[in-house]
């Protein structure tokens, strides 16, 4: 960015970007790059692909910036566009965006298995890198819903609309994703304890 005294607000940057000012585009990019890129990286755990998707999301946004009227927050607009870009990419690759099953599997995912074992919980905070790795291991369908809800903060009704599933499906996918993450994290912790 230029001299901090000359830093412009997001609203000013949007208006200047509509006029074609490069500095304004760059301001908007730097304001939102981490959010956009992190979302892409969570959804497609490959840095090169995530960068391509982030680039595409910004380009689509900048191409349409002339139509932005300020009815909603700019970040919301960008956020939604990024999700669409990523989901389109996943669909193009034939990867499931969300699983089709509606109901919770009853037996093998039940906490009943842990009864009587006094299963230790994930105490304290979770190692961020381990959490990232665990998210990367999730099946794509689970990962989509988990990232959209728990990382990005979308509501289930929004997720249902974005990915084209029911609210119930969104909730059950999220629950399964969290259960799987719990298993991965415990495994990683146990492995780390073994190696010291």
């Amino acid at each position, binding site marked *: *960015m*230029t001299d901090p005294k000359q830093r412009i607000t997001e609203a000013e940057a949007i208006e200047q970007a509509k*006029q*074609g*000012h*490069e*500095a304004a*585009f*760059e301001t908007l*990019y*730097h304001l939102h*790059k*981490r*959010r956009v*890129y*992190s*979302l892409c*990286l*969570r959804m497609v755990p490959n840095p090169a692909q*995530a*960068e391509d998707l*982030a*680039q*595409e999301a*910004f*380009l689509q946004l*900048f*191409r349409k910036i002339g139509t932005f009227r300020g009815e909603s927050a700019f970040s919301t607009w960008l956020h939604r566009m990024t999700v669409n870009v990523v989901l389109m990419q996943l669909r193009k690759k034939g990867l499931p965006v969300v699983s089709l099953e509606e109901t*919770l599997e*009853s037996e093998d995912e*039940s*906490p*009943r298995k*842990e*009864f009587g*074992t*006094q*299963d*230790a*919980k*994930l105490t304290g*905070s*979770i190692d*961020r890198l381990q*959490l*990232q790795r665990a*998210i990367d291991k999730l099946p794509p369908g689970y990962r989509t819903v*988990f990232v959209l809800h*728990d*990382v*990005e*903060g979308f509501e289930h009704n929004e997720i249902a609309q974005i990915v084209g599933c029911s609210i119930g499906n969104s*909730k*059950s996918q*999220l*629950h399964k994703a*969290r259960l799987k*993450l*719990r298993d991965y*994290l415990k495994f990683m912790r146990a492995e780390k304890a073994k190696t010291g």
Partner: protein
Amino acid sequence: MKCSEVERVLPELVDGSLAAAFPADFESHLESCPACANLVSDLTLIATEARDLAECDEPSPRVWVRIAAQLRDEGLIRDPESRPILVPASPRRRWTSTAWWLAPVAAAVLAAGAYVVSHKPAPQVATQVSAPAPTNPAPQNSAQKSPDISPNPALVATTSQPVPATHSPTPKLAKPSDVVASAAYPTVEHEASAEDQQFLSVVSTRAPSLRATYEGQLQTVNANIREVQAYLEHYPGDQDARQQLMDAYQQKALLYQIALDRIQ
């Protein structure tokens, strides 16, 4: 409440906070059932920690470089304060001597490139950075290019069109705070501009029908040079990029040499 009922309501977990959504007997069950309590605690922790991942990764500077390049290609960047790098078609000076100077100029362009490539930038020097402005006229370089390259026995020379001077300005980029700039860069660009102007003047005089062609190609090679230089501002240690910069200067020297052969 039984464990099986806990199992049924867990999907209703909202925003990592179960307590607000669930009845009192849920709480009392958790107090008496360590397994369910641990499970709920873990899932809540995962949901909470996940929030911190929302903005924890930063893309490499090359992403902005590519975005800016594409915006320029599409004409979405129209900086009013930028100046064109080439002199537009205006008073043509008569050159009575042959264009003998083009050969040493071509060599000078190459030498300038070698200097820039080998120069190690001073760290943390906060100077103005030039933006990449590749004016790639070929459609193949846009986002619409086909994913596969198929052999085309009838390759035709339609990969370039002359680009109007207004599409290849020398913009002043607002420098991100984390960018390291090269102190030598502005000097080199200034020298190249004067030579480009001379070059086009001679072409206009000796082969006016070719001016548009050479002008377009010159814009392309200059844009390529600027693009790599801008990248090297962010990644001064990238040896491959330095070699690419040398190649870009060689391309410019090649253009001068082809012109020299053509108009003598």
